[in-house]
């Protein structure tokens, strides 16, 4: 390292000669820091998303690398949130990547004392059979006053208000076609 280079690396020199006289930026940057890149720079995908907690509707940017979420942060381009997230929204990477996320279908038989694993296809088939059974047991063509109702009172559903509009649409449509009417949502709670 020559004298000139040595002097030029001196922060006071850089402060006095660079466009950063108050030493708030490049004048005091270390070589290590100059090499640091944000982790989102290495993301394969940036997806536009929306925070799943309250109804403010803060925009999120979701960064994915190697099929893993590496960062979720606020989107400063949103006119609603202007890039901000609250503690919950800021924790949403833990929400989607944490060990609490179950990955297997679990089954507890009647009178059982523990869970056991069940294949997804088997579970879907068992649920379909049970839906038809409960529908039949609770079926009413007419109610107790003789009004035509063609419905089942054997099946109920309660959804959360973090379901997508498209999901709610299919849920209501399918249950309606089945004749199930006790289809409810957090919106009433």
């Amino acid at each position, binding site marked *: 390292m020559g004298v000139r280079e040595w002097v030029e690396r001196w922060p006071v020199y850089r402060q006095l000669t660079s466009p950063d006289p108050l030493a708030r930026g490049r004048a005091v940057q270390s070589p290590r820091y100059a090499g640091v890149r944000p982790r989102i720079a290495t993301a394969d995908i940036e997806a536009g*998303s929306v925070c799943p907690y309250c109804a403010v509707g803060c925009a999120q940017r979701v960064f994915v690398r190697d099929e893993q979420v590496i960062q979720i942060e606020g989107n400063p381009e949103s006119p*609603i949130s202007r890039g901000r997230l609250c503690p919950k929204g800021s*924790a949403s990477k833990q929400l989607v990547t944490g060990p*609490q996320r179950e990955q297997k279908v679990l089954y507890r038989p009647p009178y059982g004392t523990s869970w056991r694993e069940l294949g997804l296809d088997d579970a879907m088939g068992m649920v379909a*059979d049970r839906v038809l059974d409960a529908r039949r047991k609770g079926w009413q063509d007419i109610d107790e006053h003789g009004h035509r109702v063609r419905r089942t*009172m054997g099946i109920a559903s309660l959804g959360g208000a973090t379901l997508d509009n498209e999901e709610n649409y*299919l849920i209501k449509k399918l249950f309606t*076609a089945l004749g199930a009417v006790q289809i*409810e949502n957090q919106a009433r709670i």
Partner: protein
Amino acid sequence: MPGLGTSFGRGGATDYQQDLSKSDCIIIMGSNMAEAHPVGFQWVVEAKNRGATVIHIDPRFTRTSALAHQFVPLRAGTDIAFLGGVINHILTNDLAFREYVLPYTNASFLLNEDYRDTEDLDGLFSGFDPQTRAYDTATWQYAGVPAADVGDTSPEEARELATGHQHGAGGPVLEDVTGDIPADPTLQDPRCVYQVLKRHFARYTPEVVEQICGTPPELFAQVCEAWTRNSGRERTSAVVYAVGWTQHSLGAQFIRAASIIQLLLGQIGRPGGGIMAMRGHASIQGSTDIPTLYNLLPGYLPMPVGTSHRDLTSYIDSIRADKQKGFWRNADTYIVSLLKEYWGDAATKDNDFCFDYLPKITGDHGTYRTAMDMVDGTVYGYFLLGQNPAVGSANGRLQRLGMANLDWLVVRDLAMIESAEFWKDGPEVETGELVPEQCRTEVFFFPAASHVEKEGTFTNTQRMLQWRDKALEPKGDQRSELWFFYHLGRLLKDRLAASTDDRDRPLLDLAWDYEVDGDEPSGQDVLRHINGSDLTTGRLVDGYMDLKADGSTSCGCWIYSGVYAGGVNQAARRRPRDEQTFYALEWGWVWPYNRRILYNRASADPQGRPWSEGKACVWWDEERGEWTGEDVPDFERTKPPTYVPPPDAVGPAALRGDDPFIMQADGKGWLFAPRGLLDGPMPTHYEPHESPVRNLLYGQQSNPTRIVYPRPDNPSNPSPPEPFGDVFPYVMTTSRLTEHHTAGGMSRWLPYLSELQPQLFMEVSPELAAERGLQHLGWGHVVTSRTAVEARVVVTDRLVPLRVQDRVVHQIWMPYHWGHTGLVTGDVVNDLFGIALEPNVLIQDTKVLTCDVRPGRRPRGPALLEYVAGYRRRAHVTLATGVPAGAADPQGS
């Protein structure tokens, strides 16, 4: 929702969050916005920095109060007394914005001669039937306007059907209101709405407000002064509320009271004005717009009713009037287009578009009624889709015991929530009421995909649909609800393919041919079907004005029609805010028709000119012959302000050029609601279902139409005039923390959030702590006739004892996010509540109850049951306790 819907014609927030920054005064009541909606609260802070006055009215000093100019305390559940006091202040001092009120509201309309007020009938309106505890609304009508034909739906049945929900996107039905309604433009006639309102609220004086709410008169006077000063041509005030208003036995009427004030002061449809409903979940607005609710079809079309909707014609005739104004008159095009989306080619004009395929409702099939039916053994299977009623619903014990008595339960969630494991180690296992080896319910747990692992839209609190891209595939068996229901439907169709049973036709004919990507149904394709198409050309429609009633269009949700206008996913637009004007019309899509401020025709005067330069939003451009401005006009674009319809016009064509409330049958904002609400045309102060004091104003103690379910597993605490209420002498209210989310399924498993708020606690005043011997940071427990819940005690002056009538009322506050699983655990606060419901929408009253509080931890195991039974004995709680007078005798009493 019916509070806004009956007042203005739509149940959504009238305003746009960012627009709060244009306010001169923001009244926050029934909301702790800084805590529950912190990022939205930046717009309140922005307004404050620009000089706006911010006022927070609440039982407790909160994070919102800390940033307000003024904190005003009141007793939980007395909001109508407070707001009625403001209305009385406006009317007594002639402070209404008369140039707005006269043309835009129903102030001048004359009422039926037979109408009688609560002032005449000691707390009841005319038309009350004490046997059914329901109102016949015939006497609430305008003079000369017949009571609308409501088919065979009786008033009592209307309550069971939660008909209040139906005004989410269209006002209540009034027949024969297209012509001139008898009116007195001088507002002097004693029968005109303005004078009726004035008499109704005349007794809501500052002294009465103080005696009922416990609010000091000087603070109340400051609220009245700030609110009214910031009104008129040059200035606007906004109201912000949340479930602190809705979750009451009078919830809709709280919102009505605020709506009346905002109409009188000319604040609706104007920049910086309006009523901002802050919803609590990412798509709670969407969950009613495209409902999974028993009494609604998409777009607030009511579910058909077995007693009266025999066919499509009788259905359409009962949900809209022939001679009514506005766009709800076109409800026939909305329902036919929905039936075409549901049943495709099978739906034809000859078969009533398969109307008969829709199952019929006949009463209360809501979530609480259903939970009791589970206990009683008449429900066999239950789906929980991202919902945790074991923690999040009132009377958690009843919820859990209901789930323990099913054939099967399907839980779909991100994590192993309490509702999936109630049989294993829930509170009833501790008390011995549930034994795993004896619990018969078969439980399936399906892991769900998260918000980043699927594509779709949420509808936020300002009615904005925002599209989410799919960032990555879910892992293992994790799937979206879209996947689950699409494939469940496919499997069911396969199983029934050979069926000849008539009951299976609706399923077999169901249009279920959505595009699939791999095995995941396409959210975009479902959204396109929600938007709707012209079936003759196959092209997507641009909005609900394109829909037809002849079967040539299909549309899954008429209010969302336009989200795919021009064949483009409008909800996916993300043009950066810096590249747009204030209303950012190219970010997301807002129903209806991307209009950001509802009723914005009212931001201009009757002649179409802005009320003032500073508050301009939408105005009439005479040269171009159209409405223009910063927002999309919520009005027919080329209808001039001077337009007067011909006498035979109906529907949209019958709207005058100065009728800004285009979904209302008469085009006006409703100070007085002749229809649509089951508990009164105007708000009236009643005490909460559980209260320590007698109603100061009326013999009628509490909302006479509220829904109670007297059962041994759902007792109420006694309230005056019933004796022994002093066993539960304190008032309690609950709300949220920033760091947790509702029943905790999305927060109590997260290390960051669990560390920030690790434990259930209760806040009490130093005075109450001294009275009961509670130690700061020590244990205490709260007791009701349902159960006892323990928590750490925080002694704080955020709660102040209030002087109410001749006594001091202490209030306790608790958050409600905890349960028995997760990283941080605690007792379930909702177990303290019984089930008592608001009559219009059947929402539970979980913002106010009475209770006792004691130092130390609660008894454990079976001793807890005996401890609470002791309280019930001392309070003489029976099945008749808390049941409104006149109610049918409770079963088994």
